């Protein structure tokens, strides 16, 4: 099993190299073959649970289409070596429809929490995650800042 620091580095690499720098080819290296994820639906009618690397690549591509300049920040991270919990922020220009929200053209910031379960080899076996403020951030007329 990876050490907590090794496990955290896997997830830092996910948010940096894979999701921000868009090196989706690394998914085959970093994710287990039986990878499963549970994440908010990106469109009405699609269920929240998906399996497999290819399904995840499609999800990453959908994000990238909606937010061409997508970038992620790891704000805080804890791990026991098996599970990695990440307090993260996602930002980018909302350029195409996403999760039922019409494009706003705004530079949007969405915060969230991401959980990853690693296998004995340090590969990502399962992830589950949620956003905090996606409805507010992507609304046509967003609420005030505070």
């Amino acid at each position, binding site marked *: 099993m990876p050490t907590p620091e090794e496990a955290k580095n896997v997830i830092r690499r996910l948010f940096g190299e894979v999701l921000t720098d868009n090196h989706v080819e690394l998914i085959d290296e970093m994710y287990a073959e039986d990878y499963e994820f549970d994440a908010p639906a990106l469109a009405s009618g699609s269920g*929240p649970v998906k399996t497999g690397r290819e399904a995840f690549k499609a999800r990453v591509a959908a994000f990238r289409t909606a937010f061409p300049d997508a970038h992620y920040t790891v704000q805080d991270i804890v791990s026991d070596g098996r599970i990695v*919990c990440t*307090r993260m922020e996602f930002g980018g220009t909302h350029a195409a429809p996403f999760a039922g929200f019409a494009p706003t053209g705004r530079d949007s910031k969405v*915060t969230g929490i991401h959980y990853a379960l690693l296998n004995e080899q340090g590969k990502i076996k399962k992830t589950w995650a949620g956003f*905090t403020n996606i409805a507010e951030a992507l609304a046509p007329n967003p609420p*005030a*800042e505070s």
Partner: protein
Amino acid sequence: MSVEQNIATIKKFVAVGLNEKKIDSIMSEICAPDVVLEAPGVPTAAGQASGFAIFREAVFGWTDAFPDVQVDIASLIVEGNSGSFDLPYSGTHAKEFAGVPPTNEKVHGAELWFVQFDDEGRFKNVRICEYGTPLRAALIAAQAHGVHP
């Protein structure tokens, strides 16, 4: 505070604040007065607001609408002054919640919490995210099926 003390604070919050619905009895012990809450439904663009009252209202509003709600801690990891836990729950929707009238349905859901502690071991920053089917969507679905006109 030590990791063990921060773990104990989280467990106390879940046991007393959520399962026993006695958040008022432990607010000053577990929560900094200027606590920042980030959660779905907080009506700001960043989804965050600060202060004792907003945190209490978020907890009380939930446990009041689901008076038999019971939560578990599926996983809990604390390092230093940061901790995170996975919180599956079930409860009966007995009062209006998030604009949805009571359905009297037993609902199941889950939240991820990420907490940062101050030097006195109190919640300083609290972020909450739902995963799976969001609670409000589940309640609306129950209504939409015509079970609860």
